[in-house]
């Protein structure tokens, strides 16, 4: 049914290219998230699909139908807004039944679908309450119910949880996935919160400067990001610059300078190539636990609830982060102590050194 296909979709605002030849296919019943830093064009993309913005070039197909010149109201989509946008002058019931009413559904049918939808989405509010009497979470659930009332099979979520409190946001994200999966919908979810995207979607698309730079299952993006930018944007990573010294059957050995060497299982780079080595702080550990061991000096410790972040300065001046969970009876080194950091070679990612420099490649602009 509603498979969405974008072919070379381009949208320019003056000299800024918000969407630069986007090609993307969202399969039927797939829950897909688009993430990226602010201004990467993700909102423009979802608005193009909804018909709120007309692209300058390219085609958009929904369920096999070319919808480029189809007005918003005829695209058969459900759209959930970041600022919720429940009509302030209508009650919960008035909001939920709005879609069927303006499409001229018979009243009995409207009422039946509304009851079913309220049950399904677990809208706990009184139906005669006005939006400003509800909490943010309830408002957004009502808005989701409203969006689904027209029996649309495609749900577009434009930062739906962005305006909500942290706890409510976490609870509602699983609700969203449940609703989409129970009803067998296709969903496109735009967010700048990568954790949210990772935990609810089947597939995550990473955008930057108007282009899709990578897409894949959440676990792939986390474990084996194909691009340096993704490694930085999804989760957290330490980056070190080096040169490939030797390629063996075990993997490649990278020279980081100042006598430090590190082994990676990745053998795709060439001898003598300048590379960037990346690894996630949660895969590093203190002490010599494997062949990859870097000696350094603790500079500072930051506690953040369940985790401790240890900052270690290497002999060449780079500072790397080691993350570990906080366990009782396990001593934590103090600032100034000499420590050894170990990272398993399986978790060492290697990327060619970016032409424009590491700093610009990782920048969130």
């Amino acid at each position, binding site marked *: 049914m509603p498979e969405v296909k974008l072919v070379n979709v381009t949208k320019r605002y003056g000299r800024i290219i918000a969407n630069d030849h986007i090609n993307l296919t969202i399969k039927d019943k797939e829950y897909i998230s688009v993430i990226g830093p602010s201004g990467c064009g993700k909102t423009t993309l979802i608005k193009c699909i909804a018909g709120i913005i007309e692209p300058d070039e390219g085609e958009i197909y929904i369920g096999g139908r070319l919808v480029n010149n189809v007005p*918003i109201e005829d695209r058969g989509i459900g759209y959930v807004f970041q600022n919720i*946008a429940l009509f*302030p002058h209508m009650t919960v019931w008035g909001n939920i039944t*709005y879609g069927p009413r303006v499409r001229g559904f018979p009243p009995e049918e409207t009422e039946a679908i509304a009851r079913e939808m309220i049950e399904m989405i677990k809208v706990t509010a009184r139906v005669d309450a006005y939006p400003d009497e509800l909490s943010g979470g309830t408002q957004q659930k009502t808005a989701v119910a409203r969006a689904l009332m027209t029996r649309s099979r495609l749900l577009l979520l434009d930062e739906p949880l962005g305006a909500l409190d942290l706890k409510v946001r976490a609870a509602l994200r699983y609700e969203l996935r449940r609703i989409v999966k129970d009803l067998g919908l296709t969903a496109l979810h735009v967010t700048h919160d990568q954790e949210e995207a990772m935990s609810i979607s089947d597939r995550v698309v990473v955008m930057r400067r108007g282009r899709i730079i990578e897409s894949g299952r959440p676990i792939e993006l986390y474990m084996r990001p194909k691009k340096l930018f993704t490694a930085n944007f999804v989760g957290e990573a330490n980056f070190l610059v080096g040169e490939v010294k030797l390629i063996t059957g075990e993997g490649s050995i990278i020279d980081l300078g100042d006598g430090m060497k590190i082994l990676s299982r990745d053998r795709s780079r060439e001898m003598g190539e300048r590379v960037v080595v990346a690894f996630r702080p949660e895969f590093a550990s203190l002490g010599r636990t494997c062949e990859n061991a870097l000696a350094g000096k603790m500079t500072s410790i930051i506690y953040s609830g369940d985790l401790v972040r240890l900052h270690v300065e290497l002999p060449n001046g780079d500072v790397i982060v080691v993350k570990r969970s906080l366990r009782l009876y396990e001593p934590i080194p103090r600032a100034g102590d000499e420590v050894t950091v170990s990272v398993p070679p399986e978790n060492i990612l290697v990327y060619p050194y970016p032409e424009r420099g590491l700093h610009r490649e990782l920048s969130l602009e």
Partner: protein
Amino acid sequence: MSSRLVVSCTLVTFIIFVMLPTFYLISYVFLRWDEVWYEVFANPIIGDENWRQIIKALIFSFRLSLSTVAFDLIFGVPLAYVLARKRFPGKGLLEDLVTLPLVIPTSGFGFATLVTWTTVAGLGGLLGMRSGLISLNAVAPFINVPFILFIVHVALTFPYVVRTVETKIQSIDMTYEIASRTLGAYSLTTFRNILFPLALPGIFSGAVLAFARSLGETGATMIVSGVSTTASIAIVRWASEFKIPTAAFMGSLLVFIAWVIILPAEIYVSRGRRAHSLSFSVPMNLTRRIIRFERFLSRKLFFIKDIVPLVIVAVAVVIPIAVVLNSVILYWSADPYTGKIEGGVVHQLFGPSNYFSHLLKATLTSIIVALVSTYIATCIAIPISFIIERRWYGRIIRTMLKVPLIIPTSSLGLSVLLLWGSSGLNLVSSGIWMIILTHIVFSVPVVVESIIASYEGSGIQMYEESARTLGATAYNAIEAVSLPLIKGGVFTGFILSFTRSLGETGATFIVMGRDLTIPVLVVNMVEALAIPAALFTSTYLIALSLVMLAIVRVFTQR
């Protein structure tokens, strides 16, 4: 100096100069009820003829004002929507054109419309006819009011509806409309269900302002009314015939009507942000038919909303001004049709009738009146604005300030005449000083509104508090922090009030005595059939106000 003293002085000045005249007018009717009764209802010679005249004028005025407002709403709301939601080249120009009738002196504008439609110098001549396009007393169908009068009132009230609704729509989050469309509603259905109910307070207050303005309009109406008499013209006529009790009775009726309209509107508009939708149940098949109709309109005829209001603006505002400018050139040295130099602008200005010296004198009077009244009004308005923002009774004062803006100016003039003149306090006699007193009454609200607009967006309270924490006294903080912040608002208010004073006709007519202002001079010229001289003076007025508008624009854009 304690702040309580400052506040009391301000309030006393405000009440005496701004509020008292209107109250005095009403109390005059009650105090001298015997005279009013004798003259209006029980005159030994004409019986209740005056009362019947009052009723006749009121009914005519209401018919005119209601049909004007209806027309304004039908075409003004779509235009407001386009101006608020769409971006297109020339939008700023269009906004200026819509606002223009607010700054052009109405008698000049009325004369421009008169020339355009009813004389050979206007559209008639351009289309090759030997007469005007339509006659002065041609009646518009259905509404049964003279066509010219209707056009003038539409042009003068259109900005109130368009600008008020435009501001309201701009304040409504566009996401609501998009949400409605994603749920399957056509653009017109969305407008009916979402935008219209949310913008209703703005539409309502725009309509009230337009209605009040049309009811009280005097300057242009005097020129184009022909044989018909509106309520505010009747007051001017009676006052000049020294039928003061009749005029006072009519004046208080108009003030009363304005009150009855404005108070509920103020309460409704300020009732809070939740505008409940108008829920009336419509049978299902009818609803479907409405939706199908809206679909048709949304798809096929939506461009009408862009075109028709433009045509109205062109017809009512642009063409008259263009025609007047054109005519001045045509009539410069002689009447182009008869060739007589007596019919030329130059002859009338510098010839035996010597209108030029009248014009110079009137210019001097106008400028003195505008400068002095605006200056005094500004001095009252600045402290009043602070009181409105900071005292609990501020809202009440603000509502009271709406009164001088909406009561017919001829009633206003009459009330000032009665209060300060020989039948009241007997302190001032008709003439330039009484004109100044009259203009202060409506200038204070104009300046206050403008100051408050700049006050509310500026976060003054916060800056002033931080000045206080740095050791400034209350007075120092106001002088060093607040006044510079509202400077723009004060200046804009000054210019607006100056322009308004320059163009005022209705009230000035009643209190002017022997001192003429320029707009009144235009009316006199028209009545003396000195058309070329009137053409020149109108152009002169329009040019003056365009300069003012340009100054405001430059200043507010910064």
